[in-house]
């Protein structure tokens, strides 16, 4: 018998970790991974709340999140590849040619 709060805490921590990753890492792939972490944190929250409510809607939202995550990963990685072809680097700071 685990209180709902525990799950929320876990997902909050995961989310924080993900956010930190986005800001700290200097590798596009790792940044994408951090985004995945955040998404999963959110998923956990959804499922936990859904369970607490006693219905399946939470799970269903999770599927949608997964779909979006898949799409995001596909496009994001494609962009990463394209970028990597131009500059031999995955450092986001290397791609500032749009700067004013």
């Amino acid at each position, binding site marked *: 018998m685990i209180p709902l709060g525990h799950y929320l805490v876990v997902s909050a921590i995961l989310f924080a970790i993900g956010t930190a990753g986005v800001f700290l890492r200097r590798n596009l792939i790792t940044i994408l991974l951090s985004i995945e972490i955040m998404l999963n944190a959110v998923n956990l929250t959804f499922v936990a709340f859904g369970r607490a409510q006693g219905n399946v809607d939470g799970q269903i939202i999770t599927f949608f999140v997964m779909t979006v995550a898949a799409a995001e990963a596909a496009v994001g990685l494609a962009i990463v590849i394209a970028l990597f072809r131009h500059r031999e680097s995955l450092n986001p*700071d290397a*791609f500032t040619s749009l700067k004013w």
Partner: protein
Amino acid sequence: MIALIPLFPLLGFAINASMGRRLPKAVSGGLASLVMVASFVVSVMVVWQIADLAPTQRVIEQTLYTWITSGDFKIDLTLRVDPLASVMILVITGIGSLIHIYSTAYMHEEVDREFARYFSYLNLFAFFMLVLVLGASFLVLFVGWEGVGLCSYLLIGFWFEKRSAADAGKKAFVVNRIGDYAFILGTLLLFVRFGTLDFQRIASATAPLAPESMFGTLSVATLLLFIGATGKSAQIPLYVWLPDAMEGPTPVSALIHAATMVTAGVYMIGRNAVLFSHAPETMMVVATIGAATALFAGTIGLVQNDIKRVLAYSTVSQLGYMFLAMGVGAFGAGIFHLYTHAFFKACLFLGSGAVIHALHGEQDVRNMGGLKAALPTTYWTFLIASLAIAGVPGLAGFFSKDEILFETFAHGHTILWTIGILTSLLTATYMFRLVFLTFHGTRRHDAPAPQHPEEEEPTAHGAPSHTAASDAPSHDSHVAPSHHLHDAPAAMAFALVVLAIGSVFAGYIGIPGALGGHNALGSWLEPSFTARSVTTLADAQVAEPGEASGTGEAGGEVNSGVELPLMLVSSVVAIAGIALAAFIWLKRREIADKAAATFPGLYRLLLNKYYVDEIYDATVVQPIRIVSQEGLWRGIDVNIIDGAVNGTASIVDGSSSLLRRLQSGSVRTYAGSLFIGVVLILGYYLWR
């Protein structure tokens, strides 16, 4: 059954338009004429069919399919034959087929492609005209209405290489468009008022109402419709296109601008007799305009020198007569005149066509004369038709015209009656001026006089001497001075003779009561002008004595005592007119010139058709052009519209040049701003 009537010409059009260019003339022309004849036969059968029915429910309807359905608004594509429509379809198909036959010979110089094009247009026109008269609702009628407009444009501009022809076509189209606009407005107004567009429903909805004393919905609507009518059937102020329409081939002028299309307006008013008779103001306007047009056009016709123009103006003035009749509520008389006029005017046009054909495109009467011997058939038919139009007793024109005048008088419009009489005098005069100038006197034409005109006739149809000229206009294309004048070829002659006979006897179905007849046509048409409902038109019009029942014998019973003297007057006037013409243009030629010399201003005024075209150009065309060019184009379009577009662009440009400072180009800067936003929003929700 009914559907067949318009379908035949449509079929002809389809075939000629699609594969006509590959067919030889004989086939395409023969086919076109054949479908017309077929549809004529069908029409006769249909008319026979409804003739059996009792006078009050002489109606056959055929709903082809539901055209438009939106909510409770529903338009069926319905064809309806009632007495009025029956007369119209008979005229259209009958005269139409005659003219088709005539055309096979007349247009013979055209190359196959042009030939087929011509006949496809002709068939298409017949189709639309039939749709117009058969349509049971304003919308269906409007289809035909627009269609004939289109066809007249196509046919007038048939020789589109000739600039004047193309211009004339455009003119006709534009002027018609003005009328159509009003017509649409009127239709919409009626729909708003009655919620339906079906003629019968509108009529039976109107019948119980009391006639509007002051301008109300009905008056406005009918007025708008009438403007449309003036556009179609060439009344003041929109008549200007008709004379120019003579640029088209002569049979076209005969078919469209004499026999059928121009009568669309008259027909439309007759079709909505109940409606109009409930709008006395409109009726008054109609009558006045009609009379004015009649006189106006007559005076112009007096001095014109182009044989076809004279006829065109006479058409206008005859149409004026019809509208006069409609205006005074003598719908029957109007339709009657429409019907007789179709015969003799078509005959006149075709005759003139024959003359032109014989003289290889010569249209100026001053260069004609003495053709009587050369073109006997043409001459005699032309003469008969002229007598008929002049209103000489015993011929078609007499009965109808006289009936109109009588009705006018009987309804107490004395002034209009006087105008009418004056006009008939003019009519007689200019018609016979034409006759004498063309056929009598001495030749003023360089082509050698024929030795044996009649032996030309058989060969003429084959036209061996005709160099088949490909380039239009064909008339100017082959000037062969050294070849004999020949009378109308067989096909033409046939049409001419039939029409001439028609213009003699067509009137006898409408002999007024005063002459011991019983106006068969009037009583036949009677039901069409009454609402098919509890109240008949007569009851509905008790309130308006000026418009006692729309047909002849009603008036005849009222005061047949007046009728005979009136007839006498008009016939005397007609004879007088002829005599005058004979005196001037046969005996004392110089009088005319002297007259012209004494009143140069008047003469020039008439010769230039009262400068109406110039006035229109100055008052309407130029202003519109200037406004649209300087105002709309240079002003609004360039400055405002383009300005708006460019302005938007420049605004975006400026703002983005500011915004782009936020574009650090580094992903994590964006992420940072996003992060800030998240923190702020979350904070806000937590504070709440």
